[in-house]
C-alpha cells in the first residue's frame, strides 16, 4: 500500500491553479463583452471591452488547445 500523496497534492495544486485561472480569465472576457454591450448602447465603441474579451478568450483557447494536445499526445 503506497498512497502517492505527493502526486495527489500535485493534482490538486495544478488542477486548482489551472482551473481557477481559466474560470477567472473567462469571466474577465465575459465582463469585457458586457462592458462592450453597455458602451454600444450609449453609442460608444466599446473597444476596450472588446480588446479585453479578445485577449481573455484567446488565452482560454490556448489552454483548451493544450488540453486537447495532452489528450491526444500526452
Amino acid at each position, binding site marked *: 500500500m503506497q498512497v502517492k500523496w505527493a502526486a495527489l497534492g*500535485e*493534482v490538486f495544486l495544478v488542477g486548482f491553479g489551472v*482551473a481557477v485561472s481559466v*474560470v*477567472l480569465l*473567462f469571466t474577465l472576457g465575459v465582463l469585457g463583452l458586457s462592458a462592450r454591450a453597455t458602451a454600444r448602447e450609449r453609442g460608444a465603441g466599446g473597444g476596450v471591452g472588446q480588446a479585453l474579451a479578445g485577449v481573455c478568450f484567446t488565452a482560454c483557447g490556448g489552454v483548451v488547445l493544450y488540453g486537447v494536445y495532452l489528450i491526444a499526445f*500526452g
Partner: protein
Amino acid sequence: MEASLLVVVVVATALIFDFTNGFHDTANAMASSIATGALKPRTAVALSAVLNLVGAFLSVEVAKTISGGLVDDARITPAVVFGGLVGAIVWNLVTWFVGLPSSSSHALFGGLIGATWISAGADAVHFAKLVDKILVPAVAAPLVAGVIAMTGSFLTYRLVRRARQDVVGRGFRAGQVVSASLVSLAHGTNDAQKTMGIITLTMITAGMLPAQAGPPTWVVVSAALAIALGTYVGGWRIIRTLGKGLTSIEAPQGFASDASAATVILASSHLGFPLSTTHVCSGSIVGAGVGRRAPDVRWGVAGRMVLAWLVTLPASAGVGAVAGKLSSTGVVGTVAVAAMGLAVGAWIYRASRRNPVNAETVARAEQADEPESPVEPASAPVTV
C-alpha cells in the same frame, strides 16, 4: 473449439459493458450543459458520442493490464473475465435505473475482483492495491474537484455581479460547450481503452494473440463504436440527477464545474494519480452549487450518490463472484450466466419503460421545476 466460443462470448459481453459505460457516463460531461440550456439534450448526447468516438481513436497508449494490478492477471481465465463483466453490467444497469451516477470503472474492478476471488482464491486479489487504487481516489476525487469548482463559481459570481446578465448567460453557455466537450474527449480516451484492454487480454489468455500484443484494429473500432453508441442513447436518468437533482445549475456554475472537471481529469491522468471521471464530475457539480449558494445543494441526493459509490465495488464483486464461479464450471455454467444477465437486463429495461426518462422528458421536467426557464437565453436570470 470451446475456448474460442467462450472468447466470442466474452468479446460480445465486453462490448455490451462498453455500451453501458457510454450511456452511464454521458451525464458526466453533458448533464450541466443540458441543465443550463447551453446544448439541447439531443445535440449534447450526439456531440458527446462523436467526441467519445474520436477520443477512443486518439490515444495509442493501451494499459498493459486492465485491472491495474488489482488482480493477478496470470490467474484469470476468459470465464472469470466473463463473470466479472456480467457483474459490472448488472450493477451499471441497476444504478442507471435508479438514476445514480456510479463509477463504471469501480463496477468493472469490483466484478473482476469478485470473480477472481471466488475462482482463483483470495490471494489472487491484491487487496493492498484496493486502498491506493480505489479507496483513496474515491474519497479524494470529489473533494479535489469540488473545492476547485466551488472556488471558481464563487469568484465568478462575485465578479459578474454588476455585469449585464444577458451577456453573462450567453457567454458562459458558449464556454460550457467547449469545456463539456473537453470532458467528453478525455472520457473517450480513458474508458474505451478499458474495454479494448479486456478484449485483448482475453484473446491473449486464450492464446489467440501473442503476449504483450496491442489491440487489433477491429477491437479498437468496435470498442469505439460501442461506447459512442451507448453515449448517443443517453443515460437520461443519470443526466436528470446530475443536471437537476443535486442542485440547480446556472451557466456560470456549469462552466466552472466543467472547467474544474476537465482540468482535474487531465491533471490526474498526467501526474500519475488516476481519478474516476464520475467522481470528479459529481464533485464538481456539488462544488459549483456550494460556490453559489450552499443551501441550494440537495444534500440528501448527494448522500444517496455517495452511498452508491461505496456499494458499487462490493455489489458488483458479489454479482461477479457468483457469475465467475458459475461460468468457470463449463459451457452450461457460462450459458446460464449469460441467460441470467440477459434476464436481468430485460427486466430492468421493462421496468424503466413504465417511467421513461428521455430527451423530451428531461427537458420538460426541468421547465416544470424552474418556471423561469433556463432554456431561454435572453431571460436566464443569474442571481448573485
